[in-house]
C-alpha cells in the first residue's frame, strides 16, 4: 500500500519536475532566440549541480543567456569580467579594516565577500585572467567553499559558475589548466545562429519591446528538483556503456577508435563519467521519460567530454577536433 502511495506521489513529483523544467526553458526562450541546445545544456548544468563553460565568439548572447537563467530561477546573480589585472581577492573577497561606531571606536578587520558569494556567478571571458586568479575559483567550484584570511566560508546553495570564453582572441589569454577544466560539468559550444534565428533576434532586439524573464523557480525548488533527478534509476547496461565510452577516450583502450589512438594524449577523468550519467538523467527528465537511454548518453557525451580530452602534438598540429574524435568514438563503442 505504501509503495502504491509512493508511486503515485513519485509520479506527481516527476510530473511537477518536468513541468517546472519546461516552464524554465520556456521562460529563458522568451528572451533568448534559438540556441535551444545551449539552453538545454545550461539548464542541465543547473539541475545536475555542475558548472558550465560556454565557448563562442562575442555577441552570441552567452552573457544574456546566463543572466536570463538567473532571473528565471530567482537566484542571486553576479557577473565578474575577467581581465589580466583581476586579482583573486577581487573574486573571493578580502578583509578590510573597519573603524567606526559599530566597532566601538576600535579598528578591526572585516571580511568583505566577493562576487563569488552568489548563487549564479558569470565568469565572463575567464581565460583572460591569470592562472593565479583562475585558480581562485578552483576551491569554490569543487568544494562550494571559499578560504580567505584563514577562514573557510561556505558559498550559498545552490552555487553555479557559468563561465564564458572566446576561442578567437588568443592574444593575451591564459588557457584554463586541465584541473580547472575538469571541474566544469559541461563545455558548451555556442554556434552562430541561423538565418531565421538572426531575423528573430533582430526583430526582438531592435524594437521597442524588451523582454525580461520572470522567475519561475526558486532556490529550494531547484534543490528539490536536483534531489529527484538523482533518484532516477539507471540500468546497469547503461552504466557499463558510460564506462566503456569514458575508457574509450583513452588512447590505450581497446575500444578506442583510430582517431583517439592516434591523436589523443590523455582521456577523460572519472568526472567525465559522472557528468555523462548526471546529464543523461536530466535529459531524460527534459524528454519526459523515466530513465535515461543510450541516446541520452550519446547526446550529452560531447559536452561532458570535449574539455576533458587532451590532444597530442600531432593532433594539435593537424587541427584535429576533439568533437570528431568523440563522434567516431560514440559510433564505435559497442552498446551491449
Amino acid at each position, binding site marked *: 500500500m505504501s*509503495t502504491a502511495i*509512493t*508511486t503515485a*506521489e*513519485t*509520479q506527481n*513529483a*516527476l510530473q511537477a519536475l518536468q513541468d517546472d523544467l519546461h516552464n524554465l526553458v520556456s521562460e529563458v526562450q522568451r528572451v533568448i532566440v534559438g540556441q535551444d541546445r545551449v539552453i538545454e545544456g545550461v539548464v542541465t548544468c543547473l539541475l545536475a549541480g555542475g558548472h558550465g563553460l560556454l565557448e563562442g565568439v562575442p555577441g552570441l548572447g552567452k552573457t544574456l543567456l546566463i543572466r536570463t537563467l538567473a532571473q528565471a530561477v530567482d537566484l542571486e546573480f553576479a557577473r565578474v569580467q575577467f581581465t589580466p589585472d583581476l586579482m583573486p581577492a577581487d573574486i573571493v573577497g578580502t578583509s578590510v579594516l573597519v573603524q567606526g561606531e559599530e566597532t566601538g571606536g576600535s579598528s578591526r578587520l572585516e571580511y568583505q565577500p566577493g562576487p563569488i558569494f552568489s548563487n549564479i556567478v558569470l565568469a565572463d571571458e575567464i581565460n583572460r585572467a591569470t592562472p593565479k586568479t583562475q585558480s581562485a575559483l578552483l576551491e569554490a567550484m569543487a568544494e562550494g567553499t571559499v578560504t580567505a584570511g584563514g577562514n573557510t566560508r561556505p558559498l550559498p546553495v545552490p552555487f553555479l559558475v557559468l563561465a564564458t570564453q572566446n576561442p578567437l582572441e588568443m592574444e593575451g589569454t591564459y588557457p584554463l589548466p586541465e584541473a580547472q577544466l575538469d571541474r566544469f560539468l559541461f563545455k558548451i559550444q555556442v554556434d552562430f545562429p541561423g538565418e531565421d534565428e538572426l531575423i528573430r533576434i533582430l526583430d526582438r532586439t531592435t524594437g521597442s519591446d524588451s523582454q525580461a524573464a520572470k522567475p519561475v523557480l526558486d532556490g529550494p525548488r531547484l534543490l528539490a528538483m536536483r*534531489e*529527484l533527478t*538523482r*533518484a*532516477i*534509476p539507471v*540500468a*546497469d*547496461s*547503461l552504466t557499463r556503456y558510460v564506462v566503456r565510452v569514458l575508457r574509450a577516450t583513452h588512447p590505450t583502450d581497446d575500444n578506442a577508435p583510430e582517431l583517439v589512438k592516434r591523436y589523443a594524449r590523455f582521456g577523460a577523468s572519472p568526472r567525465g563519467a559522472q557528468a555523462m550519467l548526471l546529464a543523461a538523467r536530466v535529459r*531524460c527528465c527534459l*524528454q519526459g*521519460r*523515466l*530513465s*535515461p*537511454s*543510450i*541516446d*541520452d548518453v550519446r547526446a550529452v557525451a560531447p559536452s561532458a567530454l570535449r574539455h576533458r580530452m587532451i590532444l597530442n602534438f600531432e593532433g594539435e598540429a593537424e587541427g584535429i577536433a576533439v568533437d570528431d574524435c568523440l563522434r567516431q568514438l560514440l559510433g564505435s563503442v559497442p*552498446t*551491449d
Partner: protein
Amino acid sequence: MSGVSTLLSAVRRRLRVSDAAWGLARIALPAGLWIAAVALLAVRRFGAPSELLWLTALPVPAVLAWAGLRRHPWRATARRVDTHYGLDDQVGNALELARHPAPAEPTAQQHQAAAIVALMQQRAGALAADLDPRPVVPLRVPPPRASDGVAALAAIAAMFVPPPDPPVVFSDLDPIVIEIDRETHHTPMDLALAEPLRDNLRELADAHADTPAELAEAILDVLEALENGEIDRATALERLEQLEALLAEAEERWEAELEADPAILAEAMRELAGSLEQKELTQEAARALDRGDGEQAQQALDAAGEQAQKEAEARKQLDEALAEAERRLSKAAKNESDTDKKLDEAERRLRREQKKEAKTPEEKKEQERRLKKMQDEVDKLRRQQKREQAARDQVDKLRRNAKNAADRRKSAQKRKQSLQKLGRGANKASQASKGSQRMGQARDSLDEAKSVVRRAGQQGEGQNRRRKQMRRFSKAAKGQRGDQGKQGDQGKGKGKGKKSTLLVDGDVGDGKPKSMMEMLGQGQGEGQGQGDGEGDGEGEGDGDGQGQGKGKGKGEGQGQGQGLGQGQSQGRGLGMGDGSADPLGEESSMRSNKKNVRVNAKQGRGVSRAEVIRDASQEGFANETYRKVFKDYRGFAQSALDSEALPASARRRIKRYYQLIQPRD
C-alpha cells in the same frame, strides 16, 4: 510485465526465423551449390562414391541448427524493439531494472527509485500491449548475389564434366568392316601353322570391346576367308594392309589421347608386382598386377589392408612389402629416358633448318616440307616428354601412398586410406599400361598375320629368296671368315678350348659353316647353331685386361639334314668384352724417380651412346653404311620371321631388338 515478455518472445521467434532465412539464402544455398559442384566433379571425374552428393544438403540442417541455437538475449531483443519504435530504451530499461534485486533496507531515495521503476514497468507494459512484433523483425529472404550465380553455374558446369577417359582401353565408335566377297572361290589354303596366331587373336578379341578386339576379329575373318578359298593371298594381303592403315589411324588417335607414358607405368607396375610378390599376404595382388588385372589387384590390396588391421604378422608383412614397393617405385619414378635429349636435338635441328635460306622456289618448297616434318617431330617429342613426366608424377604419387601406408607414425585410418589410394592408383596405372599392351598385341598380330599370309603356299619361292638374302647379309656383315670349325656328329655339344669354343646345340645340317665368329684372346664360348652348309654365327665375349675372359657365341642357320650330333668346334670369332684391369698397367721396372698421378675424369650427366667397331684394323674398315647393312640385316630377319612359326613373344622380342639397333639419324 507479461505484455513485455510476450512481445519479446514473439520478436525472438521472428529473429530465429529471420536468421534461418538469411542463413539459408546467404550460407546454405551458396555453400550447397559449391559443395554440389565439388562433389559432382569428384564423382564424375575422379570416381568418388555417389553418396558424396548427400553432402550438398549438409548446409541446410547446419544453418537451421545455428538459427535455432543462436542466443538472442532479452536485453538485446528489448533494445531492438525500443530502437525500432523510438522508445529510448523504455522497454529495455524497465525489463532490466525489474530484475534488479531490491535493497534490504532501502533509503528514501531508493524508495523513490523503486517507485520510478514501478512506474516504468507500468508504462512499458502499456506500450508493449500496443506494439506489433512483425515490423521489428521483417522476414525477408535476401536477394541472390552475383557470387550465388557463380556457385550455381559451377554446379551446373560440374554436371557436364565428362567422366575420365579410360586411358587403358581405346574404343572406336566406327566398327571395322572388311569386305570379303564370299561368292568367289579360290584354292583353299592350309593355315594350320597359323593356329597359335588365331588363339592369340581370339584371346585379344574376347577380352575387351575396343579397337584391338575389333581388329583381331577382322584379322580372324581374313584368315578364315583365305583358308576357305573365299579370297586369294593377294586379296588377303590387301585386306590386311587396309587393317594396318586402320590400326595406324587408331594408334595415332590413341597416342593423342594418352596422358601418361604407358611404358613407364608398365615398368612401375612390374616393380610394384615384384615387391608385392615377396610377401605371402600381397602375392594375390602381385599376381593380379602381373595379369594386368588392376581391379583385382586393388581388391586384393584392400583385403590385405583389412587383414593387416586384424593380425600383427600380416601388418608386418604388409609394411615390409610396402617399404620395398616404395623403394622400387622411387627407382621407377626416377627412371630417365632419352626423350629430353632427342627433343633438344630435334629442336636444334629445327632451328638450324629455320635459319637456312632457300634460293629457288623448289628449294623453298622442299625446306617447308622438311620444316613441317621437323616441327611434327618436335611436337611429338614434346608430347612424349609431357606424358613421361605425367607418368613419373603418377608413379611418385604411388610411391608416396606406399610410404604413407607403411608409416607406423600415422594413424590406422590414414594408413588405410593411403593403401586404398595405392590400390586405386595401381589399378589406374595397370589399366593404362594394359591398353598400351593390347595395342601392341594388335600390331604384332597383324604383322604376324601378314607373315602367315605371305608364306602361305610359297614354300619353295620363299626358300630361294631367303638364301639370296642370306648371301647378301653375309657379304654385308664385316669380319673375316674364321677357321672352319670342326663339325660335330651330334647336335648337342660342349667344348672348351684354348681359343674360343662354340657350343652347338641343335640339329646339324649338311655342309660347312661359311662364317665363324672370331674372338681374341683366350676364352670360352657357348653357342647354338644350325647349319645347312652356309654357316652363320655371332659371338659375344667378355675379356679382361690380362687376357682372361669368357666368351659366348651363337650360331644360327638352317639345315636340311636330320639327326642329332655332338661335336666340338673351335674357331675364331669377334667378341665384345668387358672386364676390369688396372688402367695404369704394370708398374714400370725402370729405376727412376717415378710418380703416380691419378686423374679423376669429369663425368657428365645423361645417357651417352657409343658405337665401337672392334678389330677394324684387322678386318678393314667398313665400306657400307650402317643404314644399308641394317636394312639387309632386318630384311633377312623379317624373311625368317615370315617363314617360321615363332611364338608371338619371340616375334616381339626380335622386333624390339631391331627397333633398338635401327639407325638413329
